[in-house]
């Protein structure tokens, strides 16, 4: 049979593709619907948080920081409850990372504050002596891309039914609504309102001035994102 295949390239290619496709069909396909369900209390990202998530991705933070807490005592002691599949239901793409040059950030919002992040992103070693993380000073001047974040919200709401503007059940039995603007102008206004709350807790005068003038520097967006990681 093998000798025959080696003389018949088309049949050879067909047999190869069947052999390699097999694993994906068995391992990936059956679980798709089941795993995409959110656990109770998981909410989609606000416009500003999503813009911050884009800043996180733009700077490949995931190259050095994971967002996956494994079920070991040493990890739950350090980072909090181990990760559950449903907590990632609104993560497109997933940001688990594959290397921890720095610590895990899955629940960083539970134990770090706005001013901690501000100081740390400006000069990591001044906050954590010995840190090898580079400073991210350009985030204080670059503007966050709110429009693209809004475009993504519209897309995921349309295509994947992500529940914006709908009551979402929380752990304590209450419900919460994550609002999404009805157009770009409203989305920008909502993001700015959220940015103002963050800027209140920051010290950098240029950032405060920018927000007061209706601009949102990247640092504000990424802090909003990290504060929202629980």
């Amino acid at each position: 049979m093998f000798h025959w295949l080696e003389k018949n390239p088309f049949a050879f290619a067909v047999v190869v593709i069947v052999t390699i496709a097999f694993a994906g069909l068995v391992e990936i396909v059956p679980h798709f619907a089941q795993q995409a369900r959110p656990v109770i209390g998981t909410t989609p990202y606000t416009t500003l948080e999503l813009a911050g998530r884009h800043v996180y991705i733009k700077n490949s933070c995931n190259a050095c920081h994971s967002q996956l807490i494994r079920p070991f005592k040493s990890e739950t002691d350090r980072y909090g409850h181990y990760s559950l599949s449903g907590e990632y239901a609104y993560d497109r793409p997933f940001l688990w990372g594959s290397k921890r040059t720095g610590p895990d950030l899955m629940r960083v919002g539970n134990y770090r504050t706005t001013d901690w992040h501000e100081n740390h992103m400006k000069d990591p070693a001044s906050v954590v002596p010995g840190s090898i993380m580079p400073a991210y000073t350009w985030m204080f001047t670059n503007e966050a891309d709110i429009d693209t974040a809004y475009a993504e919200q519209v897309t995921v709401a349309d295509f994947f039914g992500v529940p914006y503007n709908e009551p979402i059940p929380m752990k304590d039995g209450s419900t919460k609504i994550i609002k999404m603007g009805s157009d770009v102008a409203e989305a920008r206004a909502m993001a700015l309102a959220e940015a103002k709350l963050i800027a209140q807790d920051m010290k950098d005068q240029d950032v405060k001035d920018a927000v007061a003038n209706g601009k949102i520097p990247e640092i504000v967006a990424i802090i909003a994102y990290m504060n929202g990681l629980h």
Partner: protein
Amino acid sequence: MEDRPLEYDYSVTRLFLIFAIFLGITGMLVGVLLAWQMAYPGVNTFLGEGLAEYTNFSRLRPLHTNAIIYGFVLSSVWASWYYVGQRVLKVSMAESKTLMILGKVHFWLYFGAAFVIVVSLLAGVTTSKEYSEFEWPLDLGITVIWLLWGCGIAGLIAIRREKTLYISIWYYIATFLAVAMLHLFNNLEIPTYFASGGVGAWYHSVSMYAGTNDALVQWWFGHNAVAFVLTTPIIAMIYYFLPKESGQAIYSYKLSLLSFWGLMFVYLWAGGHHLLYSTVPDWVQTMGSVFSVILILPSWGSAINMLLTMKGEWQQVAASPLIKFMILGSTFYMFSTLEGPIQAIKSVNAIAHFTDWIVGHVHDGALGWVGFMVIAAIYHMAPRLFKREIYSKSLMATQFWIQTLGIVLYFTSMWIAGITQGMMWRAHDQFGNLAYSFIDTVTVLHPYYTIRAVGGTLYLIGFIMFAYNIYKTTTARPVEESELQNASPMGA
């Protein structure tokens, strides 16, 4: 016509070969820079604060991985395909005008894409998925480039004189098919600009998969992009170049059959080993572990087949630095394909995952196996492409030892770094509290990061010697016009 050997057309091979060397230097230079940044963070701003956004670790890291995998390695693979393909199918590209045009368009599109990719990664345009960072316009471009190669393969096979496909061709076909499948499924994404009626950045997209599903597809892709870019085409190369250079026949046809079909079936299952103790289903994790261990069989099958091909001719290893590259390359392949399965065992992975040991593993495969095999292939092809002997044998030998030392420093330091960090993360004191804060596990790695940076620098120095040697080869004195058999001629 039938009496004398065929004249093959190497114009496309030459383009890919030269570009491969250029991309190799670029990718390795960035890698070395990253290594020094981890040892000495001040290097992040080596071009000043103003340019720090484009010189810091996180922007350069995707550039390094992509320049090596899809730049250096793919360009070398294609250089080898446009050389090996003609020779084992016994047909010249020049016999078909269409094939020549396809080949040239293939190269120039790829050449153009490479520059767009560099700019987009430096600008931070990325989907964040490892080894699949490109946004949708580039994904489409890559699909076109890939299909051009596929048409080239199909076309050359269609007009072949030798009816039986040699082993190398099996691996090239598998590479083409598997990467096409992986690329298509991992990059299913929706451009937000069009979906939202024209809001925001036109190049931005959102993944079709969420969370755990996204992770599952990404590592099914990620693991096998490694398999089908860094393994199968390299095996294709060694199955051709080792017998050619040594004048020895492949040791066992049956072993190559077993290895090929075994690799095809087993490799795709093993992606789950990147997701151990994550939120993907337990049985997928276990399958990932088990199949990773089974993967030793087909991997070692190929490597042993190569080593035994040298049976009775081991003096060639001592005599020829070119054979040395191939034999040490095969040995590193064995080493790397044993180390990988060990790391895929759940209890070992608990310590190894997220640490530098994984980085070490990738690099003993990439530097030792892929890098050495590519270097050997180019050394073998160059005298035939340029009809001149290799410029310097002693330079080649020196390069071999410098690079070998570089690899040894690299993987030993990363073993120690990885296991040290993995153990420190999980250490508890007598009261059950964590023994170390995270930063303790970072500062302790400084000496190992420095050793790794030295190792990487040595490898880069060796590679620059290689580039120089090839450059001089293209300009040194011509050899006779006759077809070169077996061992490549080398100057002192």
